[in-house]
């Protein structure tokens, strides 16, 4: 009896884990994928990082207390690891494979963003392109809202220089 209940409990636990992961996926995956794609400059990298992040979430089950934050951090880390792994011999830079042929400004922006540090780029993507508040971005990036604000300010300053814009 006890053995049967144990098996059932395991199955229920597994179903619960999958359900929770699925719920997280439904809420997060579009914005997460967009964020990683723009941050890395590559939809391929985003595809793989996001899929793998959710796969790891499924494997880890209830070890993960906050699935949304966890999957964001993991996807960014996987994407960053992949960018660093590329045998370019140069400092890791995203390879732009985004469909950007419709907007010159967007193309210039993404190219300019390649010259930001990864954390600055992440802050711009989350706060300026995806609309997260500094506090929310801090939670997702595993840092403080104050750090997000400082990095974002630096990123915007750098972008102004790179894009030679006049709102200085």
């Amino acid at each position, binding site marked *: 009896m006890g053995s049967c209940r144990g098996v059932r409990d395991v199955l229920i636990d597994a179903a619960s884990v999958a359900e929770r992961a699925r719920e997280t996926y439904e809420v997060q995956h579009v914005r997460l994928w967009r964020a990683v*794609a723009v941050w890395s400059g590559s939809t391929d990298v985003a595809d793989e990082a996001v899929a793998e*992040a959710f796969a790891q979430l499924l494997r880890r089950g209830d070890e993960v207390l906050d699935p949304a934050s966890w999957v964001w951090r993991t996807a960014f880390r996987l994407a960053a690891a992949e960018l660093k792994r590329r045998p370019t011999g140069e400092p890791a830079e995203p390879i732009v494979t985004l469909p950007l042929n419709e907007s010159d400004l967007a193309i210039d922006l993404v190219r300019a963003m390649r010259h930001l540090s990864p*954390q600055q780029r992440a802050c711009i993507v989350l706060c300026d392109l995806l609309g997260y508040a500094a506090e929310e971005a801090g939670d997702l990036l595993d*840092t403080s809202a104050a750090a997000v604000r*400082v990095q974002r300010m630096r990123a915007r300053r750098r972008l102004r220089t790179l894009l030679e814009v006049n709102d200085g």
Partner: protein
Amino acid sequence: MADLQEYLDEGREHVAAMDPPTDLWARALARSNGADADLLDLTGSAQRRRPTFWLAVAAVAAVFVVVTAVVATDRDEDVDTAPVAEDPSVTDPPQGTTTGPRNNGRVAFYDNRFGSWDVFLVESGVGARPLEGAASSDDEVCPTWSPDGMRLAFGRQTTSPDTADMDVSLVILRVERDGSTGVPQSIALDGFRPLPGFDPHPCAVWSSDGRWIALAGGGEVWVIETQTGAIQRIPDLRPSDLEWRPGTDELAIAGDMGSDRGDPTASAPVVMYSASAGDLRQLGSIEAAHITWAPDGSVLAHQAGEGGPSSIGLVDADGTGERLLVADAGEANHGIGPVWSPTGDRIAFQRLIGDSAEGHEVVLVTVADGSQTVIAPPESNEAGGVRQWFPYYVTWAPDGRTLLYSAWHRGGSPGASTPSGLLAVSADAPDEFQVLTDSAPATGDYSHRWAATQMWGRQEG
């Protein structure tokens, strides 16, 4: 020529039109079951990646998850600031590479080693120990010493398990040199509520004569007469700094923390509140988020909040004589702004190092001539290698020659949040420092931080 906002607007529109592939969830499910048939080659070639690649990726991810991250490591020293629930068995042997200062009193801090927040005392040469008579199932937070070093004030929070209602009180306790404590004076703070997102911590700051205490909560400043427990409440204030002018009953109130934790800390006109007269007046025309008084109460140093100029200015106590002390104090995202030394000759502040996201160094500026001395993050040799300590916030010890760092260090155990502790650092010989405790969460980030200025008591050793 387009401005940056136009670029960002275009970028936002473009991003909003991007959609992920529809089979992402199926890929995740397949991988979670060990399948790798759908893996794409991230280099763009048609060649399928070996399974070991994904084992490696998984290993990398796992390591990153528990130790650090590229996003986090690229912000170099960044790590989470969340406090770690400590093992109650943890002991606090005094550590450090050198002998620390021994002429100051005890440092009070709070930690959650035993399942609730409790007040601890630590001093040079003696490990951290719970405050006698204060440990309980209630949360006890934000301890500050009275200027004579004889009384400790801290907040106590009691949450009803049935209603989730929270009672908050201010406790004042006499603490003898041997650690024994007197009968606690408990002052109920009825109606005290934190700003949304902040820890519900009443963080007291003492006036120089020990008669008054000020704290902030719920969009108000509370002023409490310590002998009678009488409370005055000043509405419509969300200050980021409270500093009693030495030798007076005047409280300087600065800054605006916004409506919740996500808002930036902004500058606001500095106002002075007379606790005896109950009146409020503006101090000259300065606006600031962080302030500190000269120990004789004659001059106020001030610094702007986020988005403001990074200078440190001085103004006389009557609001006149505005002048610049530091033209560019750099950027900071931790700390409590400038802190005037008890001896009056120097002001300490902290700033971000280079492009670091959260790693700060400390700068000492001599008030007389504006000259600056930079103190690099101390490094201690541990069994696991060199630890580099970065201040969350820096304050002075009562002797005016020693700095107190509430600090975090790089590294730490897998799975742990930011390891942090308290350091005593010689202001004149920064290589001489002592780790007072390596288990003292920096809990001030989501609370009111000015209490750090009175963490270190003035008792003679």
